[in-house]
C-alpha cells in the first residue's frame, strides 16, 4: 500500500483536522462555523474552501439559518463522511504498519 491509496479529499492537513474535529462530536450533532473556525484557527476563506471540497464529496452537510448578521451556519459530518474517515484511518494504519 502507498500514500496514493489514501483518500485525497481527507488527506490534506486542514481537511483532516476538519473531519477529525467533527467526528469527535456526539452522533447527530453539528458545529457552528465560528466555533469550528476558532478551534482550527483557519481564516474564513480557507475554511470555506475546504468545507466546499468536503461537502462536494458528500462528507459534510451544512445548514444556514437566519439572514444577514444573524445568520448561523452549522456543519455536521455525514454517515458517508464518518465511514470515509474510518477507511482513511484504517488505510493509514496499514500503511504505517507496512513502513
Amino acid at each position, binding site marked *: 500500500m502507498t*500514500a496514493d491509496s*489514501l483518500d*485525497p479529499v481527507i*488527506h*490534506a*492537513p*486542514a481537511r*483532516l*483536522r476538519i473531519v*477529525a*474535529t467533527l*467526528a*469527535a*462530536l*456526539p*452522533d*447527530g*450533532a*453539528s*458545529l*457552528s*462555523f*465560528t*466555533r*469550528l473556525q476558532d*478551534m482550527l484557527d483557519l*481564516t*474564513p*476563506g*480557507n475554511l*470555506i*474552501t*475546504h*468545507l*466546499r471540497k468536503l461537502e462536494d464529496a458528500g462528507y459534510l452537510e*451544512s445548514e*444556514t439559518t437566519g439572514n444577514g448578521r444573524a*445568520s448561523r*451556519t*452549522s456543519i*455536521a459530518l455525514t454517515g458517508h463522511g464518518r465511514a470515509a474517515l474510518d477507511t482513511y*484511518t484504517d488505510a*493509514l*494504519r496499514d*500503511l*504505517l504498519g507496512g*513502513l
Partner: protein
Amino acid sequence: MQGTQDVDQTTGAGDGDGLDPREAARLLAHTEREAQRQFNLSPVWITVLMGAVLFVAYGALWLSTRGQHPYSGPRLGVVGLVYAAVAVAIAASVKVYRRATAGVSGPSVRRQQVEGVAILVSFVLGSPVLQGAMKHYHASDAIVYGVIPAAAPLIIVGTTVLGIAASKGDRAQFGAALVVVIAGVVAAFVGPSGAWLAAGIGLFIAMAGYAAADGRQRRRASLRA
C-alpha cells in the same frame, strides 16, 4: 456556507501533496485529542476537584456534629460553607458545560439539557420535601437535620443519574451513580453525624472513580482511532 470570502483562500487550501503518512497520523491523533478535550463535559481535573470540595464540605458537617447528644445539627457557619461549596461546584459545571457545548447543536445537546433539568429538579425537591414531611410528623432533629439531608439527596439524585446512565449505556457514569446511591443507603443507617461522613466519602469515591473510568474510556477510544 458563510457569505464572506478571504483573499487568501487558495493559499494553504490544498492539498495533501507531500503530506507524510506519519505526519498525517500525528495530526489526526492530536486533532482528535484536542477536539475531545474541548467537547468534554466532565474533564478529569474538575470532576476530582468537585469530589474533593464536596468531601471537605461534608467532612466539615461531620466534624461540626460529631459527639452531639442529643443531635442539634451543624453550626450555621458550616452550613454556609456547604452551600458555598455546592454553589462553586454548580458554577464550575455550568462553565464547563457552556464552553464544551458552545456552537454545538443537535439532539445530543437537547438531551443533555433535559438530563440537567431532571438532576436539578431531583436535587432541589427531593430532600426538602422529605425533610418537610418528617418535620410535619414530628420526627426528631437527628432525622430531619441529620439523616435525611445527608442521605436523601444521594439516593434521589443518584437514582436519577443511574437511570440516565442506563439509558445511554454509560458504564462509567452508571458505576459512579451506583456508588452514590450505596453511599446514601449507608448514610441512612450510620446515625445523623456519621451520615455526613459516609456521604462525603461516597461522593469523593464516586467522582474520583468516574474521572478515572471516563479518562480510561477516552484513552481507549483514542487508541482505537
